[in-house]
């Protein structure tokens, strides 16, 4: 019984320490911003690996999610004779929820895990220590560009996901199920509010971008520098990202749409 409490206490302390380390780490990474202002090329290179290479995955997933939404939505709406609201339904669910959330989850699986593994391996092969000894701060030089690239890419990818999803919904709703395309678009235009929907979705995707990339780069930097350690860190990166995204999504939704 005593050992149970001992191990509970130890793991709680370790978790708190890790949380503290991750915050100091984030502040330190932020100090890399001036360097990126001076040398934007560093950032652009990472935006390519983190963001551009994720475009394909995001587009294809967005298309299918939009099509499924249209199929399911049509089933429900047609019972009430409200098929013409299909456009609003698809667009609202994408802009408010599925765009930011699903993009963040996919992003953490595709780009986040790659970041964790890359940084973990750089640590394991002494590349980060080597940089320190060359008087180059690895947090500013290698981790800050990756972090800011992730934060920058997430909202753009979420926007892309949403746009492609709406098109997917249009194909199925108007093309396949025969919803009139006039009301499909005009209702969407009338009901989707810029501030309430688009802006809130943007804020969400920005917050998720920070969370997912922060977790990814920190887990890589904090990894035990062995093959096993890096593999565990990569798993943790994806799992923690999923929890953090879904949890913070609930909080943000409650704040934005809860009244």
């Amino acid at each position, binding site marked *: 019984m005593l050992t149970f409490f001992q191990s509970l206490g130890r793991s709680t302390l370790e978790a708190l320490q890790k949380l503290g380390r991750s915050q100091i780490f984030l502040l330190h990474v932020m100090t890399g911003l001036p360097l990126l202002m001076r040398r934007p090329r560093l950032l652009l290179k990472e935006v390519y690996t983190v963001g551009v290479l994720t475009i394909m995955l995001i587009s294809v997933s967005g298309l299918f999610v939009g099509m499924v939404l249209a199929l399911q939505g049509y089933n429900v709406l047609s019972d009430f004779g409200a098929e013409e609201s299909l456009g609003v339904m698809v667009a609202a669910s994408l802009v408010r929820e599925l765009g930011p959330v699903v993009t963040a989850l996919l992003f953490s699986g595709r780009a986040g895990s790659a970041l964790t593994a890359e940084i973990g391996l750089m640590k394991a092969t002494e*590349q980060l*220590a*080597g*940089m*320190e*000894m*060359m*008087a*180059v701060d690895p947090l500013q*030089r290698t981790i800050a560009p990756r972090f800011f690239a992730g934060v920058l890419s997430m909202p753009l990818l979420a926007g892309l996901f949403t746009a492609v999803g709406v098109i997917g919904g249009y194909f199925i709703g108007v093309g396949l199920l025969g919803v009139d395309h006039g009301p499909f678009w005009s209702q969407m235009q009338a009901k989707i509010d810029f501030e309430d929907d688009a802006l809130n979705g943007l804020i969400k995707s920005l917050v998720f971008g920070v969370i997912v990339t922060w977790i990814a780069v920190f887990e890589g930097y904090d990894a035990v520098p062995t093959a096993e350690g890096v593999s565990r860190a990569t798993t943790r990166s994806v799992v923690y990202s999923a929890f953090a995204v879904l949890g913070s999504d609930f909080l943000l939704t409650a704040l934005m749409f809860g009244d």
Partner: protein
Amino acid sequence: MSPLSHNQVDSAAWPRQNEPLIPILIPPDYSREAMRHDVHSDESLVSIRGLSYGYGARVIFDDVNLDIRRGKITAIMGPSGTGKTTLLRLIGGQLRPMKGAVMLDGEDVHALRRHELYQLRKKMGMLFQSGALLTDLTVFDNVAFPLREHTPLPESMIRTLVLMKLESVGLRGARDLFPAELSGGMARRVALARAIMLDPMMLMYDEPFTGQDPISMGILVKLIHDLNKELGLTSIVVSHDVKETMAIADWVYVISGGRVVGEGTPEALALSDSPWIHQFIEGAPDGPVPFHYPAEDYRLDLLGPAAGLESPPKQIC
């Protein structure tokens, strides 16, 4: 301070006739002889006083005192796992000691502010065991990395400097290869070229000979020796390869169990009457350091309960 200022390039004075084997940048107003005088040969560049370090319950260093003399090759030897690499990291300021101080060129490494420490690190180079090359950059870009980060030099000059350093380690032809395409010995030589890129005053080598074939080993021994001489460096070589290290070291410290157990010139150590040092230098399998990891009595361990020897006495051989 520009990183090049303590070793300025004089294009008129270079290349000279009768250059040494390794073409490197020699400060124009220093002849090699003058430089010898300039390094205060009896003054130490690094002095470690009362250093203790450990993590958790494990003590790695206990009250260690060391002096690294300017212009010399100092070897730090000892069995694996005695914290030799840790010592280099303490000198480089990557780790913080629990007690004691590391003075480098008159500055207390661990009392410096962050950016002062980074300035100090420009004066030291470190060769990691793995080479620590950046895997996403070519050999050329790896060697150019410190220059691109720390100097505003134009690309044409960077090219010249990088090719000169690569030539000095014999790998000018490998400039377009990626680290994954290099052998272990080549990777270390590239890392060496990178480490001398900013013309440091001190180079630290972490196990430079481990896992090398005889030829690369010979090349590395020669490079460490020649670079130290030609660049007027101070070198610290951490190693357990006795023969190679003893061949080039001016002074050797032997550490074990967190303490310095012996020091002296290689010749003096070879004649040491300490059985421990004798065993280490001779590479004898048994001696003061036993062949067996501490264990229960062998007979009891094998036969134990079956032989009716219930609860074998806790005997550590």
